[in-house]
Protein backbone atom coordinates (compact mmCIF):
# COMPACT_ATOMS: atom_id res chain seq x y z
CA UNK A 1 0.00 0.00 0.00
CA UNK A 2 1.39 3.42 -0.89
CA UNK A 3 1.48 6.49 1.34
CA UNK A 4 -1.84 7.77 0.00
CA UNK A 5 -3.45 4.50 0.93
CA UNK A 6 -2.31 4.96 4.51
CA UNK A 7 -3.72 8.49 4.49
CA UNK A 8 -7.05 7.27 3.13
CA UNK A 9 -7.39 4.61 5.78
CA UNK A 10 -6.55 6.68 8.80
CA UNK A 11 -7.14 10.38 8.45
CA UNK A 12 -10.74 11.42 9.19
CA UNK A 13 -11.98 12.84 5.92
CA UNK A 14 -10.07 10.21 3.94
CA UNK A 15 -11.28 7.26 6.02
CA UNK A 16 -12.02 4.11 4.01
CA UNK A 17 -15.59 4.19 2.84
CA UNK A 18 -17.74 1.77 4.81
CA UNK A 19 -19.83 1.31 1.67
CA UNK A 20 -17.42 -1.45 0.59
CA UNK A 21 -18.87 -3.60 3.41
CA UNK A 22 -21.66 -4.81 1.16
CA UNK A 23 -22.08 -8.41 2.30
CA UNK A 24 -24.82 -7.44 4.76
CA UNK A 25 -26.77 -5.87 1.92
CA UNK A 26 -26.48 -9.07 -0.11
CA UNK A 27 -27.62 -11.15 2.85
CA UNK A 28 -30.70 -9.02 3.50
CA UNK A 29 -31.71 -9.14 -0.15
CA UNK A 30 -31.22 -12.90 -0.24
CA UNK A 31 -33.26 -13.51 2.91
CA UNK A 32 -36.20 -11.75 1.34
CA UNK A 33 -35.87 -13.45 -2.03
CA UNK A 34 -35.46 -16.93 -0.63
CA UNK A 35 -38.46 -16.74 1.70
CA UNK A 36 -40.67 -15.52 -1.16
CA UNK A 37 -39.32 -18.21 -3.48
CA UNK A 38 -40.01 -20.93 -0.97
CA UNK A 39 -43.54 -19.80 -0.26
CA UNK A 40 -44.31 -19.66 -3.94
CA UNK A 41 -43.09 -23.16 -4.64
CA UNK A 42 -44.76 -24.65 -1.57
CA UNK A 43 -48.22 -23.32 -2.44
CA UNK A 44 -47.73 -24.18 -6.08
CA UNK A 45 -46.93 -27.76 -5.18
CA UNK A 46 -49.92 -28.15 -2.88
CA UNK A 47 -52.39 -26.82 -5.44
CA UNK A 48 -53.80 -30.19 -6.52
CA UNK A 49 -54.32 -31.20 -2.89
CA UNK A 50 -55.95 -27.89 -1.97
CA UNK A 51 -58.19 -28.29 -5.02
CA UNK A 52 -59.20 -31.78 -3.92
CA UNK A 53 -59.97 -30.60 -0.40
CA UNK A 54 -62.08 -27.70 -1.67
CA UNK A 55 -64.05 -30.05 -3.95
CA UNK A 56 -64.74 -32.28 -0.94
CA UNK A 57 -66.01 -29.38 1.16
CA UNK A 58 -68.26 -28.14 -1.64
CA UNK A 59 -69.72 -31.61 -2.07
CA UNK A 60 -71.11 -31.42 1.46
CA UNK A 61 -73.52 -28.77 0.22
CA UNK A 62 -73.92 -29.33 -3.51
CA UNK A 63 -73.03 -32.17 -5.87
CA UNK A 64 -70.09 -30.90 -7.92
CA UNK A 65 -67.74 -33.22 -9.80
CA UNK A 66 -64.07 -32.52 -9.10
CA UNK A 67 -63.35 -31.65 -12.73
CA UNK A 68 -65.62 -28.61 -12.36
CA UNK A 69 -63.55 -27.29 -9.46
CA UNK A 70 -60.51 -25.41 -10.71
CA UNK A 71 -57.84 -23.75 -8.60
CA UNK A 72 -55.15 -21.54 -10.11
CA UNK A 73 -52.18 -19.64 -8.72
CA UNK A 74 -51.82 -16.29 -10.48
CA UNK A 75 -49.27 -13.53 -10.37
CA UNK A 76 -50.78 -10.08 -10.62
CA UNK A 77 -48.34 -7.20 -10.28
CA UNK A 78 -46.64 -7.77 -6.94
CA UNK A 79 -49.32 -10.11 -5.59
CA UNK A 80 -49.91 -13.81 -5.77
CA UNK A 81 -53.56 -14.73 -6.05
CA UNK A 82 -55.30 -18.05 -5.67
CA UNK A 83 -58.21 -18.09 -8.09
CA UNK A 84 -61.05 -20.57 -7.70
CA UNK A 85 -63.54 -21.37 -10.44
CA UNK A 86 -66.48 -23.68 -9.84
CA UNK A 87 -69.07 -24.58 -12.48
CA UNK A 88 -72.25 -25.39 -10.62
CA UNK A 89 -74.72 -27.97 -11.96
CA UNK A 90 -78.16 -27.04 -13.30
CA UNK A 91 -80.60 -27.06 -10.39
Amino acid sequence: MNIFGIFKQNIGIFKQNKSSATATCAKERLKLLVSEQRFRSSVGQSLPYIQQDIAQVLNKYVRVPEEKVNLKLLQRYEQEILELNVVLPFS
Partner: protein
Amino acid sequence: MANNSKVIVVTSGKGGVGKTTTSAAFGAELAKLGKKTVIVDFDIGLRNLDLIMGCERRVIFDFVNVINKDAALTQALIKDKRQENLYVLPASQTKDKDALTKEAVGSIINDLKSNFDYVICDSPAGIERGAQMALYFADEAIIVTNPEISSVRDSDRMIGLINSKSLRSEQGLEVKKHLLITRYTKHRVKKKEMLSVEDIQDILALPLLGIIPESDSILSASNQGVPITLLNGRSDAKDAYSKATDVFLNWDLPKQDSTRGKYFKFLEKLKSLGSKVT
Protein backbone atom coordinates in the same frame (compact mmCIF):
# COMPACT_ATOMS: atom_id res chain seq x y z
CA MET B 1 -22.14 -53.56 -4.57
CA ALA B 2 -25.45 -52.71 -6.21
CA ASN B 3 -27.02 -52.09 -2.82
CA ASN B 4 -24.19 -50.03 -1.41
CA SER B 5 -23.63 -48.01 -4.56
CA LYS B 6 -24.41 -44.31 -4.26
CA VAL B 7 -25.46 -41.84 -6.90
CA ILE B 8 -24.24 -38.32 -6.08
CA VAL B 9 -25.32 -35.29 -8.09
CA VAL B 10 -23.01 -32.28 -8.15
CA THR B 11 -25.24 -29.35 -8.96
CA SER B 12 -25.69 -25.63 -8.37
CA GLY B 13 -28.12 -23.96 -10.73
CA LYS B 14 -25.68 -21.14 -11.33
CA GLY B 15 -23.03 -21.66 -13.98
CA GLY B 16 -19.30 -21.40 -13.49
CA VAL B 17 -19.25 -22.02 -9.75
CA GLY B 18 -17.15 -25.18 -9.84
CA LYS B 19 -19.41 -28.18 -10.48
CA THR B 20 -17.13 -29.91 -12.96
CA THR B 21 -14.03 -28.99 -10.96
CA THR B 22 -15.73 -30.49 -7.90
CA SER B 23 -16.94 -33.61 -9.71
CA ALA B 24 -13.41 -34.25 -10.94
CA ALA B 25 -11.83 -33.47 -7.56
CA PHE B 26 -14.21 -35.68 -5.60
CA GLY B 27 -14.16 -38.46 -8.16
CA ALA B 28 -10.38 -38.59 -8.20
CA GLU B 29 -10.09 -38.45 -4.42
CA LEU B 30 -12.65 -41.24 -3.93
CA ALA B 31 -10.79 -43.36 -6.47
CA LYS B 32 -7.52 -42.66 -4.66
CA LEU B 33 -9.16 -43.96 -1.49
CA GLY B 34 -9.98 -47.22 -3.21
CA LYS B 35 -13.61 -46.56 -4.19
CA LYS B 36 -14.54 -47.53 -7.72
CA THR B 37 -15.91 -44.28 -9.14
CA VAL B 38 -17.44 -43.10 -12.38
CA ILE B 39 -18.09 -39.46 -13.25
CA VAL B 40 -20.90 -38.84 -15.75
CA ASP B 41 -21.13 -35.63 -17.76
CA PHE B 42 -24.82 -34.71 -17.98
CA ASP B 43 -24.42 -31.68 -20.19
CA ILE B 44 -26.34 -31.73 -23.43
CA GLY B 45 -24.35 -30.40 -26.34
CA LEU B 46 -21.40 -28.97 -24.45
CA ARG B 47 -18.77 -31.35 -23.19
CA ASN B 48 -16.60 -30.15 -20.26
CA LEU B 49 -15.75 -33.04 -18.02
CA ASP B 50 -13.43 -34.65 -20.56
CA LEU B 51 -11.25 -31.52 -20.68
CA ILE B 52 -11.03 -31.15 -16.91
CA MET B 53 -10.14 -34.85 -16.65
CA GLY B 54 -7.61 -34.61 -19.48
CA CYS B 55 -9.19 -37.41 -21.53
CA GLU B 56 -10.56 -35.34 -24.42
CA ARG B 57 -8.48 -37.18 -27.02
CA ARG B 58 -9.87 -40.54 -25.89
CA VAL B 59 -13.56 -39.82 -26.32
CA ILE B 60 -14.98 -42.15 -28.93
CA PHE B 61 -18.48 -42.93 -27.71
CA ASP B 62 -20.64 -40.86 -25.39
CA PHE B 63 -23.76 -40.99 -23.21
CA VAL B 64 -26.20 -40.63 -26.11
CA ASN B 65 -24.37 -43.27 -28.17
CA VAL B 66 -25.01 -45.70 -25.31
CA ILE B 67 -28.68 -44.66 -25.04
CA ASN B 68 -29.17 -45.15 -28.78
CA LYS B 69 -27.43 -48.51 -28.54
CA ASP B 70 -24.73 -47.41 -31.00
CA ALA B 71 -22.21 -48.49 -28.40
CA ALA B 72 -22.06 -50.54 -25.21
CA LEU B 73 -21.49 -48.77 -21.92
CA THR B 74 -18.08 -50.43 -21.62
CA GLN B 75 -17.06 -48.95 -24.96
CA ALA B 76 -18.01 -45.43 -23.91
CA LEU B 77 -16.44 -45.49 -20.45
CA ILE B 78 -12.97 -43.96 -20.36
CA LYS B 79 -10.61 -45.37 -17.76
CA ASP B 80 -8.39 -42.76 -16.12
CA LYS B 81 -4.68 -43.27 -16.78
CA ARG B 82 -3.64 -42.10 -13.33
CA GLN B 83 -6.19 -43.78 -11.07
CA GLU B 84 -7.30 -47.33 -11.81
CA ASN B 85 -10.59 -46.91 -9.91
CA LEU B 86 -11.64 -43.87 -11.88
CA TYR B 87 -13.81 -43.77 -15.02
CA VAL B 88 -15.50 -41.08 -17.09
CA LEU B 89 -18.67 -41.22 -19.19
CA PRO B 90 -18.51 -38.23 -21.54
CA ALA B 91 -21.46 -36.10 -22.64
CA SER B 92 -22.81 -36.01 -26.13
CA GLN B 93 -21.99 -33.15 -28.47
CA THR B 94 -25.52 -33.22 -29.87
CA LYS B 95 -27.96 -30.73 -28.44
CA ASP B 96 -30.91 -33.10 -28.83
CA LYS B 97 -32.30 -33.05 -25.30
CA ASP B 98 -35.03 -35.51 -26.21
CA ALA B 99 -32.39 -38.22 -26.33
CA LEU B 100 -32.28 -38.11 -22.52
CA THR B 101 -35.37 -39.81 -21.15
CA LYS B 102 -35.90 -41.02 -17.59
CA GLU B 103 -36.12 -44.62 -18.74
CA ALA B 104 -32.96 -44.49 -20.85
CA VAL B 105 -30.92 -42.62 -18.27
CA GLY B 106 -32.28 -44.78 -15.46
CA SER B 107 -31.20 -47.93 -17.22
CA ILE B 108 -27.64 -46.64 -17.64
CA ILE B 109 -27.49 -45.45 -14.04
CA ASN B 110 -28.55 -48.90 -12.88
CA ASP B 111 -25.83 -50.52 -14.99
CA LEU B 112 -23.29 -48.13 -13.52
CA LYS B 113 -24.50 -48.79 -9.97
CA SER B 114 -23.84 -52.50 -10.32
CA ASN B 115 -20.25 -51.82 -11.30
CA PHE B 116 -19.23 -48.81 -9.21
CA ASP B 117 -19.24 -47.69 -5.58
CA TYR B 118 -19.93 -44.10 -6.54
CA VAL B 119 -21.69 -42.64 -9.57
CA ILE B 120 -21.01 -38.91 -9.70
CA CYS B 121 -23.41 -36.99 -11.90
CA ASP B 122 -21.80 -33.77 -13.06
CA SER B 123 -24.80 -31.53 -13.69
CA PRO B 124 -24.82 -28.72 -16.23
CA ALA B 125 -25.91 -25.24 -15.13
CA GLY B 126 -29.57 -24.26 -15.27
CA ILE B 127 -32.74 -26.24 -14.66
CA GLU B 128 -33.31 -27.73 -18.08
CA ARG B 129 -33.30 -31.37 -19.15
CA GLY B 130 -29.63 -32.12 -18.48
CA ALA B 131 -29.78 -30.71 -14.96
CA GLN B 132 -33.13 -32.42 -14.29
CA MET B 133 -31.77 -35.80 -15.39
CA ALA B 134 -28.60 -35.34 -13.37
CA LEU B 135 -30.56 -34.85 -10.15
CA TYR B 136 -33.41 -37.28 -10.78
CA PHE B 137 -31.63 -40.48 -9.77
CA ALA B 138 -29.50 -39.01 -7.00
CA ASP B 139 -29.22 -40.51 -3.52
CA GLU B 140 -27.22 -37.52 -2.33
CA ALA B 141 -26.46 -34.05 -3.63
CA ILE B 142 -23.53 -31.67 -3.38
CA ILE B 143 -24.80 -28.12 -3.81
CA VAL B 144 -21.87 -26.08 -5.07
CA THR B 145 -22.26 -22.43 -4.08
CA ASN B 146 -20.15 -19.31 -4.52
CA PRO B 147 -20.37 -16.62 -1.81
CA GLU B 148 -22.24 -14.44 -4.28
CA ILE B 149 -25.89 -13.42 -4.41
CA SER B 150 -27.08 -15.07 -7.62
CA SER B 151 -25.26 -18.31 -6.82
CA VAL B 152 -26.92 -18.53 -3.40
CA ARG B 153 -30.36 -17.82 -4.85
CA ASP B 154 -29.90 -20.40 -7.58
CA SER B 155 -28.66 -22.96 -5.06
CA ASP B 156 -31.82 -22.43 -3.04
CA ARG B 157 -33.90 -23.00 -6.16
CA MET B 158 -31.94 -26.17 -6.86
CA ILE B 159 -32.60 -27.45 -3.33
CA GLY B 160 -36.32 -26.96 -3.97
CA LEU B 161 -36.10 -28.85 -7.25
CA ILE B 162 -34.27 -31.77 -5.68
CA ASN B 163 -36.92 -31.96 -2.98
CA SER B 164 -39.75 -32.03 -5.48
CA LYS B 165 -38.45 -33.50 -8.71
CA SER B 166 -36.19 -36.36 -7.71
CA LEU B 167 -37.08 -40.05 -7.84
CA ARG B 168 -36.50 -40.32 -4.10
CA SER B 169 -38.91 -37.47 -3.43
CA GLU B 170 -41.54 -39.31 -5.50
CA GLN B 171 -40.95 -42.32 -3.25
CA GLY B 172 -41.25 -40.23 -0.10
CA LEU B 173 -37.52 -40.51 0.59
CA GLU B 174 -35.02 -37.76 1.24
CA VAL B 175 -32.03 -36.83 -0.87
CA LYS B 176 -29.20 -36.00 1.53
CA LYS B 177 -27.87 -32.57 0.58
CA HIS B 178 -24.45 -31.11 1.35
CA LEU B 179 -23.26 -27.53 0.96
CA LEU B 180 -19.90 -26.99 -0.70
CA ILE B 181 -18.76 -23.38 -0.78
CA THR B 182 -16.28 -22.61 -3.53
CA ARG B 183 -14.20 -19.56 -4.55
CA TYR B 184 -14.12 -18.36 -0.97
CA THR B 185 -11.79 -15.47 -0.17
CA LYS B 186 -11.17 -15.12 3.55
CA HIS B 187 -9.82 -11.57 3.59
CA ARG B 188 -12.84 -10.26 1.69
CA VAL B 189 -15.20 -11.99 4.09
CA LYS B 190 -13.33 -10.36 6.99
CA LYS B 191 -13.84 -6.96 5.37
CA LYS B 192 -17.52 -7.80 5.01
CA GLU B 193 -17.22 -7.52 1.24
CA MET B 194 -18.15 -11.14 0.72
CA LEU B 195 -20.85 -13.39 2.17
CA SER B 196 -19.50 -15.58 4.95
CA VAL B 197 -20.01 -19.30 5.52
CA GLU B 198 -22.47 -18.47 8.31
CA ASP B 199 -24.40 -16.08 6.04
CA ILE B 200 -24.78 -18.77 3.39
CA GLN B 201 -25.73 -21.50 5.85
CA ASP B 202 -28.23 -19.13 7.44
CA ILE B 203 -30.00 -18.77 4.12
CA LEU B 204 -29.68 -22.26 2.67
CA ALA B 205 -29.88 -24.22 5.95
CA LEU B 206 -27.68 -27.05 4.71
CA PRO B 207 -24.92 -28.93 6.52
CA LEU B 208 -21.47 -27.78 5.41
CA LEU B 209 -19.36 -30.24 3.49
CA GLY B 210 -16.42 -27.93 2.93
CA ILE B 211 -15.01 -24.55 1.97
CA ILE B 212 -12.81 -24.36 -1.11
CA PRO B 213 -10.74 -21.17 -1.30
CA GLU B 214 -10.26 -19.18 -4.48
CA SER B 215 -7.03 -20.60 -5.84
CA ASP B 216 -4.72 -20.16 -8.82
CA SER B 217 -4.09 -23.89 -8.76
CA ILE B 218 -7.59 -24.58 -10.11
CA LEU B 219 -6.74 -22.96 -13.43
CA SER B 220 -3.37 -24.71 -13.49
CA ALA B 221 -5.12 -28.02 -12.99
CA SER B 222 -7.70 -27.53 -15.73
CA ASN B 223 -5.04 -26.19 -18.10
CA GLN B 224 -3.25 -29.49 -17.74
CA GLY B 225 -6.32 -31.69 -17.64
CA VAL B 226 -5.59 -32.95 -14.14
CA PRO B 227 -8.25 -33.13 -11.41
CA ILE B 228 -7.11 -30.78 -8.62
CA THR B 229 -6.81 -33.64 -6.14
CA LEU B 230 -4.31 -35.40 -8.42
CA LEU B 231 -2.22 -32.29 -9.05
CA ASN B 232 1.42 -32.37 -8.07
CA GLY B 233 2.62 -29.86 -5.54
CA ARG B 234 0.93 -27.97 -2.75
CA SER B 235 -2.44 -26.34 -3.20
CA ASP B 236 -4.88 -24.90 -0.72
CA ALA B 237 -7.80 -25.91 -2.92
CA LYS B 238 -6.46 -29.45 -3.24
CA ASP B 239 -6.20 -29.77 0.55
CA ALA B 240 -9.68 -28.37 0.98
CA TYR B 241 -11.15 -30.88 -1.50
CA SER B 242 -9.32 -33.76 0.23
CA LYS B 243 -10.75 -32.65 3.54
CA ALA B 244 -14.23 -32.30 2.08
CA THR B 245 -14.10 -35.83 0.63
CA ASP B 246 -13.04 -37.11 4.03
CA VAL B 247 -15.99 -35.33 5.66
CA PHE B 248 -18.28 -36.78 3.01
CA LEU B 249 -17.12 -40.36 3.63
CA ASN B 250 -17.37 -40.03 7.39
CA TRP B 251 -20.78 -38.42 7.34
CA ASP B 252 -22.72 -41.47 8.40
CA LEU B 253 -20.23 -42.86 10.85
CA PRO B 254 -21.43 -42.78 14.47
CA LYS B 255 -19.51 -40.31 16.59
CA GLN B 256 -16.77 -41.81 18.75
CA ASP B 257 -18.22 -43.26 21.92
CA SER B 258 -16.90 -41.01 24.66
CA THR B 259 -17.30 -41.68 28.36
CA ARG B 260 -19.78 -38.78 28.46
CA GLY B 261 -21.65 -40.26 25.55
CA LYS B 262 -21.84 -43.64 27.22
CA TYR B 263 -23.14 -42.05 30.42
CA PHE B 264 -25.97 -40.33 28.59
CA LYS B 265 -26.83 -43.51 26.71
CA PHE B 266 -27.08 -45.26 30.08
CA LEU B 267 -29.43 -42.55 31.37
CA GLU B 268 -31.61 -42.90 28.30
CA LYS B 269 -31.83 -46.63 28.88
CA LEU B 270 -32.91 -46.06 32.51
CA LYS B 271 -35.56 -43.63 31.35
CA SER B 272 -37.00 -46.09 28.86
CA LEU B 273 -37.00 -48.88 31.46
CA GLY B 274 -38.82 -46.54 33.85
CA SER B 275 -41.54 -45.79 31.33
CA LYS B 276 -42.01 -49.53 30.64
CA VAL B 277 -42.59 -50.25 34.34
CA THR B 278 -45.30 -47.55 34.68
